[in-house]
């Protein structure tokens, strides 16, 4: 009767639970099935589609994709000098942006982590995070106005006989360095905070010059954090297309992909593999430098 029904119900639930008993692989498998499906099918799957598309071509007039295996896109990428130039320009800018951000971010992060009091520290963290609240497109357009011929930069520079960079690679470097700075400050800040103050005191007690302490104690310990930050600044610059479109007249990998997407998607896919390869190589180097030790 009523009690019977409860017994039956329980046993169904138990039987279901029993399925998992003693089967740790099934337990973990069913727990991870949904996120793994997301990662493998949607995330890696779309990368695979990209890879496959790179081997297709388009019909010259209609622009329709011809789904036949061909190495035409890769031959063009390698043989036409302009694409090498674009790739090189992009990688060079990404490296410069990374270097600039590292140089600016380190003192800020150091002050935040080791010098500032609790209140100032909180205030600085908010100040670093604040720009991330505004849309990145808005920030680029604001820079466009700043760098404009009649913009605020020229207004400030003209009286002392200087002129802003106008539209060009220099502007891209400036804008990107601004955009990705928080992504460099935060990892370095986190890395520096992890260095115990006692190590610095010990170095001082042993009579080390502050510069020696910095060079022999702080820098080696914080270096993996700098590399971690550089992954962000480098790969974000490598893939961006809006900043080059809006503040320069030069082509970058991102803008070339954007331009090709409208009439030659397979070529765009092939070009998109270039930053992927570069970033994989970069990650390999970063791993060697210990960027992932604390992840």
């Amino acid at each position, binding site marked *: 009767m009523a009690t019977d029904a409860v017994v039956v119900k329980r046993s169904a639930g138990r039987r279901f639970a029993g399925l998992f008993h003693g089967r740790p692989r099934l337990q973990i498998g069913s727990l991870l099935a949904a996120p793994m499906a997301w990662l493998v099918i949607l995330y890696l799957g779309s990368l695979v589609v990209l890879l496959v598309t790179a081997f297709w071509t388009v019909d010259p007039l209609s622009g329709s994709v011809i789904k036949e295996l061909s190495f035409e896109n890769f031959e063009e990428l390698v043989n036409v000098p302009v694409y090498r130039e674009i790739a090189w320009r992009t990688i060079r800018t990404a490296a410069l942006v990374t270097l600039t951000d590292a140089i600016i971010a380190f003192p800020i992060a150091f002050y935040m982590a080791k010098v500032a009091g609790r209140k100032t520290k909180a205030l600085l963290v908010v100040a670093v995070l604040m720009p991330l609240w505004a849309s990145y497109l808005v920030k680029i357009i604001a820079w466009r106005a700043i760098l404009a*011929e009649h913009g605020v930069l020229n207004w400030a520079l003209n009286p002392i006989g200087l002129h802003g960079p106008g539209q060009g690679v220099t502007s891209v470097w400036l804008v990107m360095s601004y955009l990705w700075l928080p992504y460099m400050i935060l990892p370095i800040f986190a890395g520096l905070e992890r260095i115990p103050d006692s190590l610095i005191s010990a170095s001082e007690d042993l009579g080390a010059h502050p510069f020696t302490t910095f060079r022999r104690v702080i820098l080696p310990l914080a270096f993996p954090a700098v590399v971690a930050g550089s992954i962000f600044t480098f790969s974000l610059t490598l893939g961006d297309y809006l900043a080059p479109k809006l503040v320069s007249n030069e082509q970058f990998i991102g803008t070339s992909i954007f331009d090709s997407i409208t009439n030659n998607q397979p070529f765009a896919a092939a070009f998109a593999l270039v930053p992927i390869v570069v970033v994989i190589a970069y990650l390999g180097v970063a791993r060697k430098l210990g960027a992932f030790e604390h992840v």
Partner: protein
Amino acid sequence: MRRREKGSPARTAWFVVAGLVAFMLVLAGCGGGGSSSGTSASGGGGEELQKLGKGEGELNLISWAGYVEPEWVKPFEQETGCKVNDKIGGTSDEMVNLMKTGQYDGVSASGNATARLWAAHEVAPVNTSLVPNYKTVFADLKDQPYNTFEGKPYGIPHGRGANLLMWNSNDVKPGPESWEITLDPKVAAKYKGHITQYDDPMSIAEGALYLMNHEPSLGIENPYELNEEQFDAAVELMKEQKPFVGEYWSSAEQQIEGFANGSNQVGTTWQYQYFALKGENEPVAASPASQGFLPKEGATGWSDTWMISVHAKHPNCMYMWMNYIISPQANAEVAEFFGEAPAQEKACEHTENPNFCSEYHAEEPAFWKRVYYWETPLAECSEGGETDCMDYNDWVRAWTEIKG
């Protein structure tokens, strides 16, 4: 106790990725067979509409900036009950790509998009008997190679105009009368960093047009039909221009902003930007009416066509739109708003400026001989059936190289 598997997680991950790649490659191979067998005819697609039915209540358009504006869209919506959703296309390439999504009913395509849309089977022939206003469209806009394929009309002419040379009248004095200000390195150097050029392969035709006038030995007759020697010369000219270009603009808004903030001082533009800047009292000028709005070499230009998608979900609304936009009143409004010559003869009686049509040479076929409408460059030159012309792919590639 069961024994643990030996494989490391990294190795398992590689197996998964390798498996996926193999699977996708198989999929890619299968896809190839299916799609290539599906396309047999040379171009176009679908059947023309035989009878106009009731409006479907909605209409999805792709248009150039300034072609679909509330002033004339509202009356259309009230009249037909078709709610208009408009997507602005910045370039012809973008329009072709948007049309390929199959989500739009129609597009205001320029001559450098029409042939490609037709070849990609994206547009359907138009039954002009269902578009009563078509009868009074200017004769020299009908049955043109850019709107008629294999003898069938594939669209309704919208209007035409020339690409303008625009300059900031404070910075550029006196007003230029020739394209040399942007294309002759000696003259252009004066405006280094402040010249602006449309970011589209069609800009190469501007170089070709310039050479047509200044290097007659090249024998260029049509700036869109260039053999290798002529093409290389035009590309070389555009490469020489590159160091002086401040911005290759790809959207009307971008250029308006560039001229307003002083970064751009002289360059190619459309009437839309010119009038928008004028409306903001910016000090811009363009070739005056006394020069026929054209620099002395003539100009590249466009003759636009409303085309209907083969995938149109609202074909009746699209036919109503095509008829409406060339109705005398609406065509006059759009022509005057944009600053182009109307396609509709009777529109000239409805313009607010009574001299509008004569100022824009709407009724003078001879004038339009100096305006070279955008075309899709094809390998086959129209004269003598030669096939040594550079095709659109060559143009696209060259444009990337020009920008460096």
